[in-house]
């Protein structure tokens, strides 16, 4: 009997394989798209993870590709670079700026696209609505280098627009680009200006999916516009808001939704506002890559990634418990 059962099992198994293959063949073109995407992620996202091991080694560029595997283990059982980073004189200001600036961007930048989407949704004139929407997300396509050029022409002390205006009004010039007291403000405002329109698209898309009969019913009951927004629009896009929030928290170290911490530190940062402008992504570049300390840069980058992962997991869990919405 057992022999017959085994034979039956084997033939069932073969039949299942055949069926799967037939199904696969029937969807071959779709599967090809999926496979291409999978291969892309495998090559550019997973394979490079092999390089993480150099965070625990004393790797030098002259060791080449093989050096990833053959480089000796770093001191302190491989944790030398992590310990060096924690002992670095700039560690506290790097972490303070990264967390502080990112939280400010989250606090100020996150609600703005939502409010903007709500306001756009209330516009009745379709043509103007479209123009405003298009103009609002154009800055997203401008690189931070161009944005810096714009900021420089407005804010520099020699012949900047703002300072020229101040001078003509008899006021003292202000060192916007070098004064450390201005950095956070300029970083947050420029981030909002650049990304607000782009992120509002997601919320507009969510709003457009709301059942219009709810609004009609609310109007019949005498609800005002603000009442409709509060009671219908916001609850219906709550899950979208939570998912975007989880993603933003996951990118907190990089600078939240815009992920602009590195670009702003690199372009707007200088020796005078360094105390406020240096952030973790920039520090990876400055003290790691620019000094050819690949192992050190990888260690800081790994530290950054671990923190981001923890933030995603925690925010996903909290969101799931509080609102029932989660990424996974």
């Amino acid at each position, binding site marked *: 009997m057992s022999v017959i059962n085994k034979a039956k099992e084997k033939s069932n198994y073969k039949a299942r394989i055949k069926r799967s293959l037939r199904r696969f063949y029937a969807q071959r073109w779709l599967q090809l798209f999926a496979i291409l995407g999978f291969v892309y992620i495998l090559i550019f996202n997973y394979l490079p993870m092999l390089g993480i091991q150099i965070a625990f080694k004393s790797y030098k560029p002259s060791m080449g590709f093989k050096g990833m595997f053959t480089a000796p283990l770093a001191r302190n059982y491989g944790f030398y670079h992590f310990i060096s980073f924690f002992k*670095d004189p700039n560690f506290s200001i790097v972490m303070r700026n990264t967390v502080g600036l990112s939280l400010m961007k989250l606090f100020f930048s996150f609600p703005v696209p939502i409010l903007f989407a709500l306001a756009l949704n209330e516009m009745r004139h379709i043509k103007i609505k479209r123009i405003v929407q298009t103009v609002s997300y154009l800055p997203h396509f401008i690189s931070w280098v161009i944005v810096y050029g714009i900021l420089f022409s407005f804010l520099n*002390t020699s012949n900047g627009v703002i300072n020229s205006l101040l001078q003509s009004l008899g006021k003292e010039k202000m060192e916007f680009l070098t004064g450390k007291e201005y950095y956070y403000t300029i970083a947050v405002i420029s981030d909002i200006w650049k990304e607000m329109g782009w992120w509002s698209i997601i919320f507009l898309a969510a709003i457009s999916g709301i059942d219009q009969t709810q609004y009609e019913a609310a109007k019949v009951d005498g609800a005002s516009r603000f009442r409709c927004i509060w009671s219908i629009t916001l609850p219906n896009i709550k899950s979208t808001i939570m998912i975007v929030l989880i993603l933003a928290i996951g990118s907190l170290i990089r600078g939240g939704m815009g992920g602009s911490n590195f670009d702003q530190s690199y372009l707007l940062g200088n020796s005078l506002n360094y105390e406020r402008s240096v952030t973790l992504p920039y520090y990876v570049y400055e003290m790691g890559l620019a000094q050819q300390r690949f192992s050190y840069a990888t260690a800081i980058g790994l530290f950054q990634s671990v923190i981001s992962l923890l933030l995603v997991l925690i925010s996903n869990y909290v969101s799931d418990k509080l609102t029932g919405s989660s990424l996974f």
Partner: protein
Amino acid sequence: MKKFTTLLMALIICLFAFSNALTQTTWDSDNLAWKQNKDPITFSLYHNMTWAPMDVWGKDHVSQRVTEDTGISFDVEIQSNAQQLATYVAGGQLPEAVFVFGGANKDLLENYDICYAWDELIDQYAPEMWDLIDKSDIQLATKSDGHFYTLYTHVRNQEYWDDPGQGVSYGENVLSFRQDVLEELGNPEINTVDDLYNVLKAAKELHPEMVIYVQPELNGTYLSRCFGVPYSGTQGAATINDNGEAEWVFGQKDVLSPYLEFANKLFREGLLSQESLTYDQEQCKAAVMAGNVFCYAGQAYDVDQWNKALDAVDGNKAYYVALRKILTVDGELLVNDTWGSPGFAGFYITRNCKEPGRLIALMEYMRSPYADKLTQWGVPELDYDMVDGFPVQNEDYSWKERGDNVWYFQASFAVENMKALGTALKDERFAQTAHLVLDYKPYWKYDVNLSLIANAEANTYEGDVFATLDNLRKTRMSSIITAKTEEECKQGIEEFFAALDSAELDVYNKFLNDQYQAIKSRNAE
């Protein structure tokens, strides 16, 4: 018989010496390696002279002439970011030839597994080249493994230094003033830093709308040098303290503090532009070109170049005169510049090169006086003419068309300086460089031992220490200068040096001094 034997011996010796003289290799000898094979060949080349106006070989006069003479062309790639070379090395993707400046880049390439050692290539492909190379250049470039992987450009050896006709680099950092404003102030004497302070203050009272003093981050070291902070071409460089020990240039508190306090005083009184402390050369130039700057720190060469550019502007009144001296502090000349001529750039033949013999032959060509002048001055009678022994450039061709000072793979300092002096001959109004390079020479001391100290290698313990120290220097000094009060400035100084100490400045100083003492003993033998 004895007399006959002696005469015969003397004749043989004379004949031997004569024949040796006949076969002694010179730059014109026919047996030079580069003359033996002029078949066309193209090599890949990477360089980081990002200021070059062209990025292709063969479109300018110089590269066309080099190809005509040697048959060699290059497929050129210019650096797009500072980490590119390290990435190429790590990925095993180096081109066949690399021409770079910068200590970190040189350290990366001077490795037997990555680049061919020139001594081995010369032995194999161009042995006559040994007769043509200055031994001090070889000594300067030889690494601890006994090989040298390049010969550096723009080396200034003792012979150069002793020549009274040769001056310092035309990149010498100087201080320049608006001549018309100085005249309004009565052309005051500026001999001390206090005189400087008084002149800046008077200029501010006269012209409150002007930017009084611009001190850029790059090339803005004039003031610090007045206080004895040594100029250093590489920020890891060493100076010698009173005990004869080598130590890091920026680790000397008793030297750096007076400078920082004085600069802070200038800042607090509105005389030093805060924004200018972050300027690079282009930004400094833009500020000066805007016509509203009274005084700026910059390179000697830029004084003439920027005056020329200002002269071309309609209605411009600005003309800058450079100070032809270093200022004293409390009656004392504190300047402490020591230059050991470590050279500027290096040309490396990587292990990916299939025909290293052709490239080492090219280097032999490049080291010749003819090619030295070609690559730094241009094609004779086309790009320049000789006037009183100096090259005066032909203005009919742009830099992009001439191609000088780009493909200068084995350039010498003396030839470079002659060009600056030649430029000065065209118009006396733009000839300050010619005087400045000689005026500032007496302030420099020459110490070859100091120049032979190697930088701390990246990814070593000392390298990590230096990275932290240099970061502190870059980020804290500007903040100290821009402190709002004198007390804040002094506190910043204390904190800065405390931070240097806790970042193991003593480890880095020991690293520098150990090398210095070893080099001193070796050279004394």
